[in-house]
């Protein structure tokens, strides 16, 4: 055991043991998906127009190299989402604007569609509540309520591979937790 750990440590050191993982970033338009991905891949905060065609970028967290597909969240583009979740090894990030109380119902129905999708039964979900730097926003508990996700979060054992983190792409609050979850998920998927 010691020996194997030592080897993986060495490989890591040389950047050889890099794990790979795919992500599909979903969520309604204006949720903050592109802003987050830009933060991940360039470190910089920047303003983007609505995403009109799926595109992808890669970034690393620790020893994991992620390739993330950024998909447009406007209504007419959502049918494409499933094309970018080809298997249950694709981590699904679903982003919810925690400051937009009007669109929460729409997010709820999209999330539940995904959670109940037979093909995604074994997929790993990460729900991100975005923009928590804004004064008035849902807390994590409120968001779970509003999205009707209590069955997924308050049951033991949890019926699904699902996590939720509240983040801000402006202040990077929540980034450490989010990064850890993504890395752990990637590692568990690579087992």
């Amino acid at each position, binding site marked *: 055991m010691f020996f194997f750990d030592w080897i993986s440590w060495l490989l890591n050191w040389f950047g050889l043991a890099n794990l790979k993982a795919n992500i599909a970033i979903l969520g309604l338009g204006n949720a903050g998906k592109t802003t987050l991905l830009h933060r991940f891949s360039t470190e910089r905060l920047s303003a983007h127009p*609505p995403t009109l065609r799926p595109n992808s970028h890669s970034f690393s967290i620790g020893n994991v190299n992620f390739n993330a597909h*950024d998909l447009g969240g406007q209504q007419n583009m959502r049918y494409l989402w499933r094309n970018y979740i080809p298997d249950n090894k694709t981590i699904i990030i679903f982003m919810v604007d925690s400051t937009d109380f009007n669109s929460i119902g729409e997010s709820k129905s999209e999330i539940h569609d995904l959670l109940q999708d037979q093909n995604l039964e074994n997929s790993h979900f990460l729900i991100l509540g975005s923009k928590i730097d804004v004064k008035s926003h849902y807390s994590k508990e409120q968001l779970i309520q509003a999205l009707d996700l209590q069955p997924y979060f308050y049951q033991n054992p949890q019926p699904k591979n699902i996590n939720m983190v509240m983040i801000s792409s402006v202040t990077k609050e929540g980034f450490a937790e989010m990064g850890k979850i993504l890395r752990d998920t990637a590692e568990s998927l690579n087992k």
Partner: protein
Amino acid sequence: MDFYKGEETDGVRFSWNRWPTSRVEATRKLLVPLGAMYTPLHQSPELTKVPYPPLRCKGLCNAILNPYCSIAAPFKTWVCPFCLQHNQFPNHYSGISDVHKPAELYPNLTTIEYELPTNDTALPIYLFVVDIGLPDDELRALTDSLTMSLSLIPENAYVGLITFGSMVQLYELGFTACPKSYVFRGNAPFKATTLIDKLGSAESMNLMSKKFLVPANECEFHLTSILEEIQKDPCRVSSDKRPLRCTGMAFSVAVSLLQAIAPNTGARIMSFIGGPATQGPGIVVGEELKEPIRSHNDIQKGKAKYSSKAYQYYKSIGEQAVSSGHAIDIFSCSLDQVGLYEMREMVKLTGGFMVLADAFSHPMFQQSFQKIFTRDTDASLKLGYNAEIQVVTSMYLKVCGAIGHMSSKGAKTSCVSENEIGIGGTSSWKICGLDQNSTFAFYFEIANQHNNQMPPDSSGLIQFITSYQNAAGKQIVRVTTVKRDWVDNNAPIQHLTQGFDQETSAVLMARLAIFKTENEELQDITRWLDKMLIKLVSRYADYKKEDIRSFNLSENFSIYPTFMFHLRRSNFLQVFNNSPDESSFYRFMLNRENVSNSLVMIQPTLEKYTFNGPPRPEVLSASSISNDSILLLDTFFHVLIFSGETIAQWRKAGYDKDPNYQNFRDLLIAPKQDAAAILKERFPYPRYIECDQHSGEARFLLATIDPNITHTNNIPQDPSKGEIVFTEDVNLHVFLEHLKKFAVQS
């Protein structure tokens, strides 16, 4: 200096309108290349057309008689200003005198069109290539549009039909008895000869036989019924697979068919594509959805499995089309990528149209498509086919190359510079499809030796000769001859700088930048733009060395740095949040439009509507946004009406319906009318958006403006003025400060 005048009469604008007299001086002083933006089919209301062929110089220059030729009594000969050759006037030119001259010698007719007297008029050919791997409603929308177009196409123009999905189908339109079509499978690209073998005798492969290509008025009924009956590809697709599309084969069949039947006569292949090629040559992505289509990221890292092979394949199709003078259009309509990135070269080489829309049922497609068939006042389509453009330069000037949708004819005449810029090494180019917006950037070089004195009062001359077939099938030669003065090396620098056209310069630099994106890293291109800008500014600004505060740029340089700021930030040089298809499309458009349209793309325009007075142009920045105004943003690709928060509230409260608030109603209507006017003129039809402040769609505006107000910077006291942008991007002010700093140092 008035730079617009030359554009109005000749459709041409230069970066520099006065030229240094030697190569050395030019290298030192012209820190934006000497170039011209030329629009061969520029529609000027005063354009003079004459019904006879042009008179060519006997010398090697091959130039055409023009107002700058010297003629003197007894008017028997003319001297070519390009090669100084003496030419005899032919007999039918006798009778010239000081007062009686042919039109092409009138001093104001620097642009003139000759219509060649020929008996046979060849009407253009439209070959539709239709993707049937589309969803049902999309296929219906497309075939409806095609049917509609039959009533717009000139009635004796030829049309043909090819469909593709899991296989290619070529329809016979000639026989009305029963519909007949030929099916092509397999992976090998066709050559015209093998196609002829397959389809019948060589004798039947001509326009006379009216088999595959038939005049619209003879096959309208038949073709309409075929279009009505076109079914979705019967080949079933499971949900984890993409529809089969042998797009590459379809183009090969189309190009070869036209090459066999109608070489060197105007024709366009109009292709309608709703998804990526998944089969055969030119494949862009595999059939399995599991395998995603390549992204910018994949391309940069050399991980795009099919891209370079597909690119080469479509490029060779493009070259085949060029060899027979045919244009290729792509109407790409889908919410996902279709492989425009790989296919772009076909369209670029041939001067075709490229449209990127969300769907065939979307106005961005439908309006764009219709627009192509819009006729001008004398009821002809404003299009040119199978064209050639030739550039002739006077002594001391050479042409380095051109950037635009054209291909080299490899004519290495004495006007050609060793120094290549863009598509160089030639002085003539082939353009298979032209329209009134097609604009080409030409780059020149001053070749005179430093110590060689120019004759006094001499000037530089450039002639553009464009021969093309118009939409009525007539052969036209348009000749534009432009003259610019030399500036003596010892003259005050203002003589040179007064001729600097910063708008045209920005566009010529943008074209160069776009050209570089084909082979260079974006970062390097941006760095190159910065370097060039610093050089220019440090040469032409007034300042004391090392003293930023003393920095001052004269008026005709002053907005150039702002253009560069926006260009660096634009979708042309930034690919994040864009797919390769989108980037290809944006760059394509910048590579074909005239100066004013290109400027809108580089630095979008913003118009502000308030209760206090008429609408006025606003600076493209976050501080131009306010609660109580409406903004109209035009990025060329998007036209957006943005209502400030208060305006939006009032509208939601229905004040515009209240007769007491007529002025509010007027305020809401004004930007819509202006937007409608833009939409009417623009090709391709842009994305039209109406949105409110703080809405998701407002991001089209927020991502475009100069972010001079951010969450950390310049937050206004009064929250009703300005808008906070969440970004760490450099704003214009900081950019300019840096520029000044570098400029005064160098």
